[in-house]
């Protein structure tokens, strides 16, 4: 039922925006979760600013991951770069096996506290889905189409840009979507190294035993993740329909 889904989406977006812009209105909802008169709504910073900073960090890391992973994926599917495929795959896998907290902790002495180590951790963690999907998308291009493109006189670059990448786009976008959604949650850990984001709200809650804070941070993050996931699925479907893939 597309109608119901759209209504649900709008409601969710509306709720999110309302909460971020007018958080105090929701105080009665969260009040029962606090004890000893603790503030029901996070008051140590602007929730909207934190949410935007959080998204900013995630999208920046996603952009960097996408550029590297897609670039690497293209490189290793060309004849000249095929020798790098096994190693690239291994490295990207290592990037995901490395717990983000460990990457974060190791990056701090190198680049300091704040956004930088968080970006590095999110970047490393987000490479795998995009890389694997790019390689998969490029490798599953129908051979007859590639043959025809070559036979018609497209140069390698023209073939890549006009044929292979457009056909691989749905898979690549799916990889980016997965990477984004995972990282929205992972980015909360960045607040342990003073990165600006919703993790701050959660950690403030943990430190002062304020469940309301924890819930606010967690729910906003979760809601953003769901909305972005959903939004991207819609974009992908639209793109596929337009491009008739």
């Amino acid at each position: 039922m597309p109608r119901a889904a759209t209504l649900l989406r709008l409601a969710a977006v509306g709720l999110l925006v309302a909460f971020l812009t007018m958080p105090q209105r929701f105080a009665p909802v969260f009040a029962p979760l606090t004890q000893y008169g603790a503030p029901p709504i996070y008051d140590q910073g602007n929730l909207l600013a934190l949410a935007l900073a959080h998204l900013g960090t995630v999208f920046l890391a996603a952009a960097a991951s996408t550029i590297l992973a897609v670039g690497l994926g293209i490189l290793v599917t060309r004849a000249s770069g095929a020798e790098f495929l096994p190693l690239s795959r291994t490295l990207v896998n290592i990037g995901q096996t490395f717990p983000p907290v460990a990457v974060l902790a190791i990056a701090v002495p190198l680049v300091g506290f704040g956004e930088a180590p968080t970006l590095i951790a999110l970047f490393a963690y987000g490479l795998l889905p995009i890389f694997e999907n790019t390689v998969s998308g490029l490798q599953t291009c129908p051979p007859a189409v590639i043959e025809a493109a070559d036979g018609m006189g497209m140069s390698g670059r023209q073939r890549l840009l006009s044929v292979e990448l457009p056909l691989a786009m749905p898979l690549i976008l799916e990889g980016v979507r997965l990477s984004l959604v995972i990282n929205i949650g992972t980015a909360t850990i960045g607040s342990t190294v003073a990165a600006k984001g919703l993790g701050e709200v959660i950690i403030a809650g943990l430190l002062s035993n304020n469940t309301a804070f924890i819930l606010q941070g967690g729910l906003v993050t979760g809601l953003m993740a769901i909305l972005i996931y959903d939004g991207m699925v819609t974009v992908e479907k639209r793109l596929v329909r337009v491009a008739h893939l």
Partner: protein
Amino acid sequence: MIRIETLTKQYGPLTVVDSVSMSIERGSITVIVGTSGSGKSTLLRMINRLVEPTSGRVLIDNNDTATEPAHLLRRRIGYVIQGNGLFPHRTVAENIATVPTLLGWDGARISARVDELLRIFQLDPAEFAAKFPHQLSGGQQQRVGVARALAAEPAVLLMDEPFGALDPIIRSKAQDDLLDIQRRFGTTVVLVTHDMDEAFRLGARVAVMSQGRVLQYDRPAVLLTRPADPFVSRLTGTTDRAMKLLSLTTAGEVAEPGAAEGPTVAATASLREVLSDLLWSGAQVATVLNADGTPAGRVTMAGILAHGRNS
């Protein structure tokens, strides 16, 4: 027009094409036939340098094809493969327009050419130009594939088992279409197939390949009557050679002056079809009619039988 000089392709110790030399006339259809592994596809793909020769050269209109960048060469040569390779993310019109766009034609010229080709291939532009490949039937896709290869008015058309994926009825129609197109545009066609009947139907000259070498390169009738190698006669088949020979000649070509009662046959009908009609009706003579219905002469049973003899 196309001269292939001692063209060889080796992959390590394996020789796939062994010093092949042949000359292809302008405006003709040449068919290269052989079993799988004979090297016929590799030979074809060395003409447009999708495979680079180990030695030897290809001259098109006395120009060595190796002297220019491969992708520029290919824009002047049409290429059709089994499976077509139509771009699934582009419309029929965009597919056909691919090479003209690469060559920088202006928009109006491209549109005109696309419409012209669609009409020639019996696909109404209004209906088909905006469709996507997956919305077409197999036969329609095949026609778009050929149209796309001819879009930039190439002098040479290379085809690698282009009708292999079609069912027999559509295949026959597609072969007829190819003959029409070739007559209309005068393109030099080189076609690869493993189907001997197709080779005989389409080729003005047929080259039989086996294990990288061309065993015989001649008109189909000569392949039948004077095979140069046991493999050639095996390939053409020994069981109904006479029928095959008869199918190479049309009634119009051998009609004697005179009239006859009895069945009528078209001037374009092959002697094999005429024989079949005569047997069926029990007659000994048939009248030959031109396309417009005027009589063109007659053929007799005796005359047909004489043509079926190996001479």
